[in-house]
């Protein structure tokens, strides 16, 4: 494959192609639950339907997100968005039996898992699925989530990537440990600050050698970590100029890490609102937005920052004149917000809303909608736009969050994919049976015993 030479080069070379993944988020305001078409978020049929539709559209991957504690709002579980989702690997193992080619990506956290256990389960998923598993590495590390686990919240935020990197390197050694498909395995030892591992791995390498590694984290530390360790970055930068900028940044980082310019692929999170004409798509977008952020969500969004109940305010009226309660607000929605800045922020937002003539609901929609991540338009116009990403190599693909479950990919697969294929920028068949083959990634080379610090079992 040409991929092999590309990966070693210090000069980035676009493939001229893009691929799709689907991100079944399970918890968010982006998934509409109020429409007649909104299906179950937990029934297996919803997952089967989306995965099989994606496979019909030759998608490279099906992603599941993870959150290990329910989000809260003013001290109680957040009630207004879809919530409640299955364990990623369990669901993906089940989906492996009703799909053939699509990659199965589990978002899994490095803080509340043990390396040997997680590596074993990912290796299992990889074998059971015939080499289609991937791990989307996340580092969520707050004490609030830790309340559900034996260890509690033991990690400093600043340590999350140091810990994650040791974790991933240990996992790689575990996946690397079998000499041949029949064994023997070399023993893997790791002595870290927070845990020790001493294991003789139980499973051989899979058809794709080991699970593909995705990384989703945007800080400089997160990007460097991806440049050193990951195969694909699940980025937050889908807008064309940002995507080009992000590619440049990541290429520099991966060259600096000694992996070459083409070693790490990029798939930003995205949302598509499509129709036959631009006019219809714009109308559809209005409808989608009105259902994503309803009146109660708009108020609740402000309450997070105001730190107090605002239910007396009219969602179609102006922002509250009352000031926020100034305190350290909790990190219970996954993102910390510091109350000291609350009043300043409130002043800023009130001015901005007044300036633009926005009601609470309009203002919150402008803040929360994935504006940059949304591609709206006719099938042909959006296909033309995406072809530009392919041509320039701004991204390697898009990870699409459908706003409807389970029918949210139908439009994309039925209309957008054929347009992209006509333009020669989208696969017309699966390249192989493993995820690594379908993404065009090189197979890892087995490390020598010495490099792996191996001990004969």
């Amino acid at each position, binding site marked *: 494959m040409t991929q092999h030479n590309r990966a070693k080069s210090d000069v980035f070379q676009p493939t001229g192609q893009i691929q799709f993944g689907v991100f079944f988020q399970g918890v968010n305001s982006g998934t509409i*639950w*109020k429409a007649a078409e*909104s299906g179950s*978020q*937990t029934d*297996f049929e919803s997952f*089967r339907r989306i995965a099989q539709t994606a496979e019909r559209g030759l998608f490279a991957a099906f992603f599941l997100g993870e*959150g290990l*504690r*329910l989000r809260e709002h003013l001290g*109680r*579980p957040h*009630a*207004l*968005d*879809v*919530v*409640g*989702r*299955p*364990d990623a*690997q*369990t*669901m993906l*193992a*089940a*989906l*492996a*039996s*009703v799909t053939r080619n699509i990659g199965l990506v589990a978002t899994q956290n490095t803080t*509340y*898992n*043990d390396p*040997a*256990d997680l590596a074993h*389960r990912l290796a*299992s*998923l990889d*074998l*059971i699925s*015939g080499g289609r598993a991937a791990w989307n590495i996340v580092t969520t590390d707050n004490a609030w989530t830790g*309340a*559900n*686990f*034996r260890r*509690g919240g033991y990690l400093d935020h600043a340590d999350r990537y140091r810990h994650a990197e040791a974790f991933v390197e240990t996992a790689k050694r575990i996946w690397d440990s079998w000499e041949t498909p029949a*064994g023997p*395995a070399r023993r893997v030892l790791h002595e870290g600050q927070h*845990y*020790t*591992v*001493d*294991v003789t791995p*139980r*499973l*051989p390498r899979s058809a794709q050698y080991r699970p593909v590694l995705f990384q989703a984290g945007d800080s400089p530390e997160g990007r460097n970590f991806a440049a050193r360790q990951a195969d694909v970055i699940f980025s937050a930068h889908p807008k064309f100029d940002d995507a080009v900028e992000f590619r440049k940044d990541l290429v520099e980082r991966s060259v600096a890490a000694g992996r070459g310019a083409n070693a790490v692929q990029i798939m930003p999170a995205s949302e598509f609102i499509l129709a036959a004409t631009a006019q219809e798509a714009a109308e559809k977008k209005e409808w989608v937005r009105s259902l994503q952020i*309803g*009146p*109660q*969500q708009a108020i609740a969004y402000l309450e997070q920052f105001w730190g107090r109940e605002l239910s007396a305010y009219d969602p179609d009226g102006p922002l509250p004149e009352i000031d926020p309660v100034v305190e350290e607000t909790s990190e219970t929605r996954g993102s910390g917000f510091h109350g000291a800045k609350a009043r300043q922020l409130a002043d800023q937002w009130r001015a901005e809303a007044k300036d633009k003539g926005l009601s609470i609901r309009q203002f919150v929609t402008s803040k929360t909608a994935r504006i940059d991540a949304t591609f709206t338009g006719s099938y042909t116009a959006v296909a033309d736009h995406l072809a530009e990403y392919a041509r320039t190599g701004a991204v390697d693909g898009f990870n699409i969050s459908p706003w409807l479950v389970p029918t949210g990919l139908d439009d994309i697969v039925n209309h957008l994919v054929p347009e992209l294929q006509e333009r020669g920028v989208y696969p017309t068949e699966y390249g192989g049976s493993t995820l690594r083959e379908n993404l065009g990634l090189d197979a890892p080379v087995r490390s020598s015993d010495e490099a792996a610090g191996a001990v004969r079992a």
Partner: protein
Amino acid sequence: MSTTDNNRAGFLAIELDGAGWDGADISRAVLAAESAGFHAATFTDAPAPGRANALQRAAFAGPVTRSIALVPEVDTVYTEPFHISTQLASLDYVSGGRAGWIATAAEAPGAAAAVGRPSVTGAALGQEAAASIEVSRRLWDSWEDDAVIRDVATGRYIDVDKLHYADFETPADFAGSGYSVKGPSIIPRPLQGQLPVLVPASLLGEVPADAVDAVLVSAPTPELLAAEVLDVRSRVGASVAVIAELDVVLDSRGQAAASRETAFDGGRAFAGTAAALTDFLESLLAAADGVRLHPASLALDLDELGRLVLPELRRRGALRPVLQDGTFRDLLGLERPASRYASAAAGTGK
């Protein structure tokens, strides 16, 4: 439950170890077990080279089967109770309510070293199991059945009053490192409400009988099994199913059982013809609610069992009907329980 109201008709489970890790092989084995008429398939997770994660093998089998219960072993000592609870609830969803859990706790220095924890032994094993089972049970109840309301008028997807913190704490006399689990669960209540929980009889005592739905009973020889079953039955009462564990090696394809090389300890396994096994199982099922068979060779013995043993047991009325579209609880004769929090006046806010 069971023995009394089912007129001594019992159920049969089969351990599918040996089917391998490949999806096609797992499908083949579980479909063979289902079409042979087994009521349940179990998936061992004891550490061994080449053995893929049991819960995932069971999950893979979910969508390809219709009636057979899928029951993985999941360790309670070196795992996170919160993860296990979510994984098992998810298995219940992907199998349409056919999931169960064999909760294990065994001395395993290798498993301890793998996660960097001291090796747990003795009575502490049962304590770990009891704690982990309690965490799962609370978390499975932490969303009441009708917590997802999708109420467009008020904009509420869930009714927060129907979600509850588990607030589990290990007891003061807990031998291992104590821990707490907050909850609520991150997945709605399992389809069955509570998955049936099975434990080996060795854990009874530390694990109270009323925390489990079935007990797995072994004996040094097949002849001693029935007495062992009766003994355990007298300890756990009628509301807990008693399942006998039986290793089997059958005369197969012209080869006598006695001459087949197997990994079983001498004397522990039932060895003989299909006809003799049929008679033996009929009498064992008069004492036990169910029997779990561990075939010496899945490929050889499953075939014989399906052709010769199960049809005859069914003809004799020794087996319960296989439930079409039923749950594992239905098979065990268990009602679907209300959430323990359902009558509580307040939700998580109070």
